Each structure stands twice: as C-alpha cells, then as structure tokens.
C-alpha cells in the first residue's frame, strides 16, 4: 500500500502530472500576458496542451554521429529531477514534520540538474550552434549560482542555522515570513533575478538565443525529446516561484499562496518583456559583481538581525 502511495505521489499528485498540467497553464499565462503587453490578442488557453500533443505526434530525429544515450539523457535528467523536487516541495509545505536533515541541500542539487541536462544534451548534438549554446549555458549557470547560494545562506542564517526545509517553512508560519525585513526584501530581489536566469527568460536567454544561434542547445531536438524539454521548463515555471514562496514568503499552505504565485509570475513576465538580451560577459558581471555584492549586503544585514 505504501509503495502504491509513493508511486502515486511521484507520478500523479503532486509529482509529474499535476506539476506539468499546472506548469503548462502558467506558460499560457506567460504567452497571454506577453501578447497583451505587445497589444496582441494572444493564444487560447489550450495552446500549451496542443503544442505538447503535436510534439508527441512528430518524428524524433537523432542527428548523425551524435551519441544516442547522451542525447536523450539531457531531457530525461531535467524531467526526473523536477518531478522529485515537486514531490519534496509540496509534501514538506503541507506537512513540515516530514522534513529530513539537509533536504535544502538536496533541493539545491535537484535545481542544478536541468541546466546540466541541457549542457549534456547540447554537447551531444554534434552541432556547432548547440555547442555554443551549451558553453553559454555553462557560463551562465556558474554566473547565477553565486548569488543564489548566498541567498540560501542568508535564509539559513535567518532561520537560526537550520538546513531543514520543513523547519524553515514552519518557523515562518510561527514568526511571520522572512520577506518582511530589509534583508528579506534584498534576498527576494536577488532570488527573482536568479529565477529569471534559471528559467532562461529574456534578459538572460543567452544560451537559447533564437535570433543568433537558433535555440542553442535545443536546436537538434524534435518530437518527444523537445516535448520533454518544454514540459521541464513549464514545471520549473511553477516550482521555482513555489520554492521562493516557501523559503521567503511563508509557505504555500493557504489560498493566499496562489495570489503570491501569480504575482511573482507576472513580475517575471514583465521583466521578460521590458528588457533586451544581455551578452554573456555582461550577464556574468551582473551576477557576480552587482548581484553578488547586493546579496552579501543582505547577508550582513541578516547577521545583524535586520
């Protein structure tokens, strides 16, 4: 019985299926808001689902000379890690006592897997543009990971040195969210920009630049493999804001969480629509020098208890 319950958790709720369906709905919100910003009408609500069904119908081509295993490992990596992350995030939000020591670290690792999958898949494609995209993805990953980790360190500091995710959520439920302090606001700003980069949205869509390197690491993917990449992106669009709400804004236990989620997503979309793409060196400088120092200021303030 327990085994069936675990399978249900991983594949249906709150794992793969639930996250994928809600995430695809959020990608529709993304496209619709983008369209409204550009004064267009935008696609109907079923558009992401239609895209997904169509990609399942299409032929999947493996480029000549590419390593088949590595080529398919790229998308699968991201999908599996995001499903596990979904289960962990939601169960620990609803019942914080399930948390085990160090699960925050596990979550950081799981969040690192999708970009690694993209890098593996892109390098295995045997396409020069895909290699350029993969190398940019790698640089960008190193760029945004520094402020991200400083933020996590600050949150651990604010919660009294615990690396238990459930405990962080529980402490906020008792003492009020971490966001309502100076250092909390600084961490929220840093985290928002890191989410933007993790999702590959516009100021930081350098690896998949459609106009210059034709979708970068994704260039050789078609059919089912491309569908898996799309679904992973959609799941990340749900999970990253949920992660942010859980560690900074009081967890997703109540109905307010839906409003918070929508607010964060609309903010991300607006940043996406009002900025031009950066160069990779500019992105590196932005994350390491500007956001890094900003996050360290937050860390010092958190140490002072502000």
């Amino acid at each position, binding site marked *: 019985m327990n085994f069936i319950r675990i399978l249900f958790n991983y594949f249906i709720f709150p794992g793969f299926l639930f996250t994928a369906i809600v995430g695809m709905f959020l990608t529709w919100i993304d496209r619709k808001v983008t369209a409204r910003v550009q004064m267009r009408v935008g696609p109907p609500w079923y558009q992401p689902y*239609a*895209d997904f*069904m169509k*990609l399942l119908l299409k*032929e999947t081509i493996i480029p000549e000379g590419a390593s088949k295993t590595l080529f398919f490992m790229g998308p699968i990596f991201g999908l599996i890690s995001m499903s596990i992350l979904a289960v962990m995030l939601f169960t620990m939000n609803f019942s914080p006592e399930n948390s085990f020591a160090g699960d925050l670290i596990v979550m950081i690792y799981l969040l690192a897997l999708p970009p690694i999958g993209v890098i593996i898949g892109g390098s295995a494609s045997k396409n020069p543009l895909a290699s350029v995209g993969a190398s940019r993805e790698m640089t960008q990953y190193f760029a945004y990971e520094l402020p991200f980790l400083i933020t996590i360190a600050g949150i651990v500091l604010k919660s009294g040195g615990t690396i238990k995710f459930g405990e962080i959520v529980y402490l906020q439920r008792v003492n009020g969210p971490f966001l309502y302090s100076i250092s909390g606001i600084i961490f929220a700003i840093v985290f928002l920009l890191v989410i933007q980069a993790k999702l590959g949205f516009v100021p930081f869509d350098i690896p998949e630049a459609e106009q210059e390197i034709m979708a970068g690491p994704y260039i*050789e993917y078609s059919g089912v493999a491309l569908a898996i990449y799309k679904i992973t992106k959609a799941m990340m669009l749900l999970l990253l804001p949920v992660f942010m709400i859980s560690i900074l804004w009081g967890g997703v236990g109540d109905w307010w969480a839906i409003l918070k989620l929508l607010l964060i997503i609309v903010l991300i979309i607006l940043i996406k629509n009002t900025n031009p793409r950066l160069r990779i060196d500019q992105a590196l400088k932005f994350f390491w020098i500007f956001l890094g120092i900003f996050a360290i200021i937050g860390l010092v303030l958190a140490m002072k208890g502000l």
Partner: protein
Amino acid sequence: MGDFKLWGLKKSPWVFHVAAASCNNCDIEILDVLTPKWDVERFGIVLVGSPRHADALLITGVLNRKSLPRVLRVYEQTPKPCLVIGVGTCTCHCHMFEKSYNVVGPYDRHIPVDVFIPGCPPKPEAIIMGVVKALKRLG
C-alpha cells in the same frame, strides 16, 4: 488518441521561414503576418528558429541551381509530418525569371508542396488563408 494528436497538429503549426531566393518582398509580407495587427499567435502559429522544431515550411522565392540543394536539405531536416507552403508567384511558376539560365523550374517538380499562395507579394490575409487551407487538408 490519434485524433487528439492530429488536433494538436492543427492547433499549433510552428513555421520555419525558408528564403530560397526571394526578392525580399515575400519575406517582409511573412514578417507582417507576425506583427500585432494580424497576430497569428491567436491560432498557435509561432515562428521557430530551427527546422527541427517546425511543422510547416514557408518557402519564398524562385528555385535556382544554388538554392535547390539547400531547400532539399532543409526539407529533409524537418521532422515529418510537415507541410510545405509556397509563398508568392515565384513558387507557383517561375514568374519573370522563367527564362533565366540558373532557374530550375517550379517547386512541385522537386519537393511536395501542399499549397501555393499566389501574389507578388501576396497579402498577409492571403498567407493566413493559405496556412488555414493547408491545415484543412490534414483531414
């Protein structure tokens, strides 16, 4: 299930733009279709950067000795099922370039074209109607 997937294909054709040797007018008209005024994203049509992601190829311009191998290559790289839509009079027959020494004739002699959209250049409305007609042919 098959019907459902076909519904997906009809509702979200991603197009790739192949400029085989056009005088640029047809290309501009294709870009017009993507502007807010006509907004084809309403129908799920998105311009993609790689032929691997494409469901429909919008081909413009007259086919000549230099561009024929490239066009064939792009067609082979596109995952099937895919549609081929010829935009402009140049693709229907050879237009005013007919007598030219390096023109290798109309498209349907070389690759299967689903619809031709005549006009020099065709209006954006005509291009949208052509894509819709091509989708209707899918059944």
